[in-house]
């Protein structure tokens, strides 16, 4: 059933090309909603063997080369399918106001979503690569056509970075294929079979970094992260949500599913480097975020910092850390999307993202809902317990304590910086006074109790729409639910991770 997430999304995309633009957003909404329902139903009801990458569909594609149309799922891929469904639905809700060429917009959006579902479910190396590359092109159009702030540059940079990663991945895949085809194990591109296959040590030692780095470009690994902030800033609201929520996860998921599973010894050889780059990324990106003036740049760098936790978790090479990394992929998918959604809400009404400009508007009074959502998102982003970020980070750090105690100490510095830049952005964007008060003794809160009409900055913005409220609530609910009860996801992630062979025994 889970395979239908892919089909429905692509069918929806095709249908969009033939309907009048008034229906476009409804088609997109229905498509993503059905996708979410399917992934939820599979996640909670279906009797899939979570511990093993179980085949769902397997049809010969190019038999001569051993390519199959082969989909499979386990706890890890189902978790990521779920976050894709949630992010996609809320991204559509936050694009409710797109009027400019809306058919096309939702068409590209659904292609990104469908391609991502495809990556998470592929069990064929080549199929995975096809879906992986399929996501890149629509991203370009989404940013270049509907974006803002230097959009052509951002779109081009992101696309070229992705293709650079793609090239590395392709080299790695070809190298793996060349070896496995000779070994005559039946299907030379089958991820299930390859995950049992023993590649020669020499190939692993250079193949792993090439493959992993190629994927990690998309996960924002330091220092190949510079596409992320520019790309996020240039993208339209839904584009940033998809980038942070899904696309960055493609990289880390594929790194785990392909690079680490195929080349376990290579991974063991290089994992110290992954952890080192991850820790540098966490601290460095948080420090950079402290200096940004554009709200979306702050969030973009925070994404890089949070993805550092994912890489650190992967680097620990124990079941707990890798499970934590998957949980963090889910968690950051939701929190990142929420943060960008709120930035979009603000930008749509104020037409600025400059923190200094926002500071003069006193937005907490004119947009109380956005302010509330941003407080929740900031708390979640800072790793306040009760939100998913904390559950993921503590799992990763408990594991990292065993593998890399020093890394955990340095990460501690990063966590203070994360709090600093998040609170700075929160204060500047929403909780600075509208008018510069002089004479601190006047307590302005005691305004006439008539109350709500006395808004000090005279500007009134259009109210937050129902679609936006619904989308934001969906994301807030998800991060809270997972934060309070991480068992929900961990029960499905952990068995899948424990079955993988790269773990340090």
């Amino acid at each position: 059933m889970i395979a239908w997430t892919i089909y429905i999304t692509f069918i929806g995309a095709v249908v969009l090309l033939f309907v009048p633009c008034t229906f476009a957003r409804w088609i997109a909404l229905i498509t993503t909603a059905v996708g979410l329902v399917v992934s939820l139903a599979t996640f909670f009801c279906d009797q899939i063997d979570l511990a093993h990458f179980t085949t769902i569909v397997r049809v010969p594609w190019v038999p001569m080369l051993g390519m199959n149309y082969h989909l499979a799922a386990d706890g890890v891929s189902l978790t990521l399918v779920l976050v894709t469904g949630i992010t996609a639905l809320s991204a559509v809700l936050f694009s409710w106001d797109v009027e400019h060429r809306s058919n096309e917009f939702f068409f590209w959006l659904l292609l990104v979503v469908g391609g991502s579902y495809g990556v998470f479910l592929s069990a064929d190396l080549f199929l995975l690569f096809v879906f992986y590359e399929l996501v890149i092109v629509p991203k370009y159009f989404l940013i270049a056509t509907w974006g803002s702030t230097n959009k052509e540059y951002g779109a081009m940079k992101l696309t070229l970075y992705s293709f650079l990663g793609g090239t590395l991945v392709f080299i790695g895949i070809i190298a793996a294929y060349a070896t496995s085809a000779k070994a005559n194990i039946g299907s030379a591109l089958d991820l299930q079979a390859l995950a049992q296959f023993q590649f020669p040590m020499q190939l692993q030692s250079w193949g792993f970094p090439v493959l992993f780095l190629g994927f990690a470009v998309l996960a924002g690994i330091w220092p190949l992260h510079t596409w992320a902030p520019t790309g996020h800033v240039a993208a339209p609201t839904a584009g940033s949500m998809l980038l942070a929520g899904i696309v960055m996860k493609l990289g880390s998921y594929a790194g785990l599913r392909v690079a680490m599973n195929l080349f376990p010894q290579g991974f063991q050889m290089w994992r110290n480097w992954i952890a080192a780059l991850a820790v540098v990324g966490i601290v460095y990106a948080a420090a950079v975020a402290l200096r940004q003036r554009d709200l979306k740049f702050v969030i973009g760098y925070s994404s890089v910092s949070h993805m550092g936790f994912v890489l650190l978790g992967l680097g620990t090479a124990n079941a707990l850390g890798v499970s934590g990394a998957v949980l963090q992929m889910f968690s950051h998918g939701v929190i990142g999307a929420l943060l960008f959604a709120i930035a979009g809400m603000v930008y749509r009404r104020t037409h600025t993202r400059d923190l200094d400009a926002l500071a003069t508007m006193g937005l907490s009074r004119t947009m109380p809902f956005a302010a509330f959502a941003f407080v929740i998102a900031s708390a979640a982003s800072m790793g306040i317990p009760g939100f998913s970020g904390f559950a993921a980070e503590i799992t990763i750090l408990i594991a990292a304590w065993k593998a890399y105690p020093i890394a955990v100490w340095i990460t501690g510095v990063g966590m203070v910086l994360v709090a600093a830049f998040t609170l700075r952005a929160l204060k500047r964007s929403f909780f600075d006074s509208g008018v510069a008060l002089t004479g601190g003794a006047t307590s302005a809160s005691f305004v006439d109790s008539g109350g709500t009409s006395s808004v000090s900055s005279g500007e009134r913005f259009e109210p937050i729409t129902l679609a936006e409220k619904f989308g934001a609530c969906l994301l807030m609910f998800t991060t809270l639910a997972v934060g309070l009860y991480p068992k929900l996801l961990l029960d499905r992630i952990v068995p899948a991770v424990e079955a993988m062979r790269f773990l340090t025994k």
Partner: protein
Amino acid sequence: MIQLIVANLWLIPAAPLAVSLLILALSSSRRGSAAALAIAGQVIALVFATAAFLPTLQTPGYRALQNFVWFTFGDQPLRIGWVLDPLAAAMLMMITLVGLCIFVFSVGYMADDRNFTRFFSYLSFFSAAMLGLVIANSLLLLFVCWELVGLASYLLIGFWIERPSAAAAAKKAFITTRIGDIGFFLGILWLFGRTGTLVFYDDGRGCLENASLVALGATATFIALLIFCGAAGKSGQFPLHVWLPDAMEGPTPVSALIHAATMVAAGVFLVARVYPLFTLGGINGVTPSLTVVVWIGVITALMASLIALAQFDIKRILAYSTISQLGLMMVSLGVGGVAAGIMHLIAHGFFKALLFLGAGSVIHGCHHEQDIRKMGGLRWLMPITFLTYVVGMTNLTGFPFFFSGAWTKEEILHATGHWPVSHLPHYLMLAGVVLTALYMSRQIIYVFFGNGRGASEHAHESPSMMTMPLIVLAACSILFSIVATPAWSWLHAYLNGEPARFDLSLLVQPMLFVSAALVFGGIGFGIFIYRNVAETDPLAQKQPALFEFLQKKMWLDEFYRWTVVALGQLAAHISDLLDRYFWDGLVRAFAGLGQLFGIFTANFDERGINAGVDQTTAGARGLGRVMSAWHSGQVQTYLGVIAVGMLALLILYAWLT
């Protein structure tokens, strides 16, 4: 009911939590219902807490546990749980009782505020998190609640967002405590790495029980110190105390509840809770970690009471007094007087809440003036506030016999006197007693005595909604002394899990007379110095340099701004430049290289490969031109050529044959 509560301790924090969410869902105009709901939630919590308190009275050293799995990874479950023991029960009673008084007070104090309902939602949320903190039976759950009270504190300090200083103070508070919390967090990770559990008591398997402690060995010192980082951040201990005075930007009931009575005491509670980690491997109860606790407490207590002498904001004086009292509690824990420290914590909760609410009443009466230089003569205008404030002050200074603060402070001084390492903390704490008497006399003379100076001229007594809680708290802090005297030290015995003894002879101790003399001396000296206060402070006239040093809080804020903050900003600046110019520069250099390559290949294509093709085509074209000249289109020419051709063929033919 008692059984139900003991078996489901989570019900205690659940009541205010549910109320908090309910109020959040209310529209902001339903002010009456919001207040009623919040108070109801607090009353329910108080009833539940009492129900939980009763069984702990019956058996000394009572302890009830419920542990459950939060989540599992593989075969390693991460467990959390609740614990009910005298420490938790006593804290529960204090928090719910003080909390209820403050909730009622807030209804009057915040009556004019626009965000009245939101205020009660936040306050209830705080109460829930704080109650969860004290009943946590797992360091992880404690940390969760610890961070949530921090979040509530952040929201409430910055509640009046219209004041830029409030938003800045909220941020400062959160980040400063966060620095301590990271230490705490690392301590948790370390502890978990060594023992594999974070549950305190778990039938012999908990991290505070023997098996785990043995496994810890010498690392316990480091873990304890890391946990103490968190405690120091929350409880305003030097050098992380700088946020607490600024936190006074929040509404006064918030200062009373969070930044005086409950949350800031959480650090002291934490140390008491994980005390076995601190005492592990000690000789005569002295360990390196406890020695650190003592000295940090001593520095904090003295520094804060000195700074309090030179402040003019009524709430800031109380804030520094809170810091110094927390330091005193830490000293007590450090020298081994756990019960004494917790007794003082509870007594302090009552009387400091009383003082803050009194200050709130004064501020309310003086139309939101907080500068004590502009007050004066309020004793006739606000009699109830004045009398209850005096009760609070006598408690705080340790005025003997009828005030709980006196007895609990007495216990602490007694404990410090028996510390085997050094007697210096003992003498310094005695000096602290004098300083406390001094700054409190100064404050009370400035505010209530003399003649009105500006703001106090049109002052009025606060409504009964605000004075009632003052009276209740004053009564509590006096009645509380019954269970805290050395003659019948019931509370001490209760906390230590021993049966209480009654012995009047213990009332007569030399220590008691020494400290009573110091208190009287301090108050007398204070009255002598400050008898004629005016706009300028007498100390400022005599010692302007010293006064400025104290007034500027020993320049610590400036010191941090030029060191820690500047360092952080420098790192941010460097990283930003690195990202903007180095890494992105590299990317752009690659892009440039690509373009350069493009230009090169384009030229090569144009001039090299393409040129050959062009010349070939040019040749072909030239040939075509020559050829086309022949195709003139004139039939005559064609016929002529054909004729010539025919002739030539004929000649050729003839010649060949």
